[in-house]
């Protein structure tokens, strides 16, 4: 017996089934030092003892020829009753032909009569008990007791073994139950378990004839590794179909299935299922479908986004973000005059290089991180305005972006004023751009904030005007100082009549609101002329200049002072 087990647990119990009392005494004498020994005089006694408390027995020593019920009958029962299959049986026999037939019938070993030396018998008993106990340990780690499917660790181990012998295309499938924890809570754990068992039995039935294995990975999450036969996953459809016909207390359960088709063998098996799980998780709350396929392009995008999110803070600290300035020119007179600039953020990533703002701005807007970027730009822009003011003796006002999320920052006003104050600037020297869609989104709060900012002397530019969904009624109540025409109108104004009409409409609205219009995205003289005809007074765009780093922008200021 393994020392650890021996020390940690009580003596094992051995059942001696033998009709001759002398033989029972001899065996009992041999075994009793190592084991607790129970006796049965015939098969019937043995079976009733076993059925009373099967778990207490570690071994059966079974004589074959007995009255009432012989050993072969006992062996048959032991090997068909699931409560008894975990107990090893050593058959005691005088006849060699009985050895073969009893091994076939499921005996684990045999002892000859006349008995072998006690050392031999004891060694055989010990070995077989150890073997069974180890097997039980392995079994309990291998199989999920609730569902009979593999456990996660063994599942992946078996996948690695399958991988050694097969390179067939395989699908990784992840399946779970929507709101399973609620089912447990509302209908009780036993109902939850019933559902899990049903799912497992459906999986097992469907997989019976396939090259596939399955496990229950966590509470209600199932993993299936399955040979892939076509572009879509028949198996997933079948399981859903089968489950749809089962009714539970909770009337309806909703399975979600994520499929990673034809796994990529350059990555580890765990990753195949992570990807399938991503697809599965993507179905959360989507009641239009139950099966989703993993999309590696989408996943790459997601990974890229994760990278950007992860790197943002360090990039701010390391000044991998920089602020560029795009000039806005007044075109009322004969000569265009540099009026102001828009601060635009650029990200020069130390490893990824220049990242398109279109890649990271919408991302950071969607998760609120844009707030950090905005604050960075405010700081940078303010210090630049102050620097030029000191250097040239006049102010080039710079407009900065105020994102939707900033509107809900209760300290917005103080924060902006603090930055200006630190740089010795007044609120009139930094312009604030708020996108039109922010207006329609949370109008009341926004109007309140904008009114407060304007009361402090800030000027507000409504960005991307025309792209949002402002109602005409709202326009009359919006407190703004400048309209920035959506650049799509400008870029299409000479190509289609509709865009041209929209430009004119924006101009009309601006006249009605008595605010000037800034036209963005102006690239050609023809566009400029047309806009000028319409009464637009401020132009921003490549026609004059692309966004420039501060030092280059400074040359434009210098030129302006010389003119």
């Amino acid at each position, binding site marked *: 017996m393994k020392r650890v087990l021996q020390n940690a647990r009580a003596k094992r119990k051995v059942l001696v089934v033998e*009709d*001759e009392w*002398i*033989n029972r*005494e*001899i065996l009992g*004498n*041999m075994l009793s030092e190592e084991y607790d020994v129970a006796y049965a005089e015939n098969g019937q006694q043995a079976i009733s003892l076993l059925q009373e408390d099967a778990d207490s027995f570690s071994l059966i020593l079974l004589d074959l*020829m007995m*009255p009432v019920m012989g050993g072969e009958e006992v062996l048959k029962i032991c090997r068909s009753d699931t409560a008894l299959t975990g107990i090893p049986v050593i058959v005691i026999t*005088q006849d060699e032909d009985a050895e073969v037939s009893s091994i076939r019938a499921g005996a684990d070993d045999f002892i000859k*009569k*006349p*008995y072998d*030396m*006690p050392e031999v018998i004891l060694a055989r008993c010990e070995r077989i008990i150890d073997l069974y106990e180890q097997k039980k340990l392995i079994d309990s780690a291998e199989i999920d007791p609730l569902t009979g499917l593999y456990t996660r660790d063994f599942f992946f181990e078996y996948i690695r073994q399958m991988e050694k012998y097969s390179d067939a295309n395989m699908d990784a499938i992840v399946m779970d139950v929507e709101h399973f924890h609620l089912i447990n809570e509302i209908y009780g754990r036993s109902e939850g378990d019933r559902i899990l068992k049903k799912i497992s039995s459906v999986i097992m039935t469907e997989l019976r004839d396939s090259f596939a294995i399955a496990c229950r990975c966590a509470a209600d999450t199932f993993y299936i590794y399955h040979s892939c036969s076509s572009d879509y996953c028949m198996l997933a459809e079948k399981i859903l179909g089968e489950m749809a016909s089962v009714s539970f207390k909770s009337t309806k359960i909703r399975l979600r299935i994520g499929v990673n088709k034809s796994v990529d063998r350059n990555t580890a098996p765990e990753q195949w299922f992570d990807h399938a799980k991503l697809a599965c998780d993507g179905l959360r709350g989507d009641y239009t479908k139950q099966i989703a396929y993993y999309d590696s392009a989408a996943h790459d995008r997601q990974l890229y986004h994760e990278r950007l999110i992860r790197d943002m803070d360090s990039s701010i600290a390391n000044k991998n973000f920089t602020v560029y300035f795009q000039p806005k020119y007044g075109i009322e007179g004969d000569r265009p005059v540099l009026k102001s600039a828009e601060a635009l953020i650029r990200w020069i990533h130390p490893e990824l290089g220049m990242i398109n703002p279109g890649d990271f701005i919408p991302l950071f807007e969607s998760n609120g991180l844009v707030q950090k970027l905005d604050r960075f730009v405010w700081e940078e822009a303010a210090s630049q305005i102050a620097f030029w003011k000191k250097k040239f003796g006049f102010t080039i006002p710079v407009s900065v972006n105020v994102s939707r999320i900033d509107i809900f920052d209760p300290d917005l006003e103080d924060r902006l004023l603090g930055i200006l104050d630190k740089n010795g600037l007044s609120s009139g020297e930094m312009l604030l751009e708020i996108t039109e869609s922010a207006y329609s989104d949370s109008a009341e709060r926004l109007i309140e904030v904008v009114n407060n900012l304007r009361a402090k002397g800030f000027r507000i530019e409504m960005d991307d005007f025309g792209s949002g969904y402002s109602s005409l009624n709202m326009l009359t109540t919006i407190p703004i100082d400048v309209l920035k025409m959506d650049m799509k109108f400008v870029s299409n104004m000479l190509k289609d009549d509709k865009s041209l009409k929209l430009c004119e409409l924006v101009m009309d609205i601006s006249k009605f609101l008595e605010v000037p219009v800034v036209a963005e995205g102006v690239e050609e003289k023809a566009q400029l002329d047309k806009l000028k005809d319409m009464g637009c007074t401020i132009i921003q765009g490549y026609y004059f200049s692309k966004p420039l780093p501060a030092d280059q922008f400074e040359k434009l200021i210098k030129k302006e002072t010389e003119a």
Partner: protein
Amino acid sequence: MITLDALREFGADTDRGLATCMGNEALYLRLVSSVSSEKSFDDLSSAIKAGDLDSAFEAAHALKGVLGNLSLTPLYEKASEITEFLRNKTDTDYGKLLDELMSKKDILTDLCK
């Protein structure tokens, strides 16, 4: 009282018998002493007298097992011989074989007195 020496003289492999009993002499001698009153001797004799070879085989087989485990060689060998004849239902003089077995048993019984 039976002794190991007497048993050895009778022809028993006492070393092996003792070993099977884990060297427990008292147990060994107690079991040997009681073997003469084993019911299987009676079962065997009545079955043979009745010509019931199947029952006779069962009894002989059982006896053979016990005698072998106690290493009572003279008895064991005779019991084995009878068992094999019975197993094959050999046509032989079972009465004579039984007498031979019984006379050896009687010797043992006397030794145990």
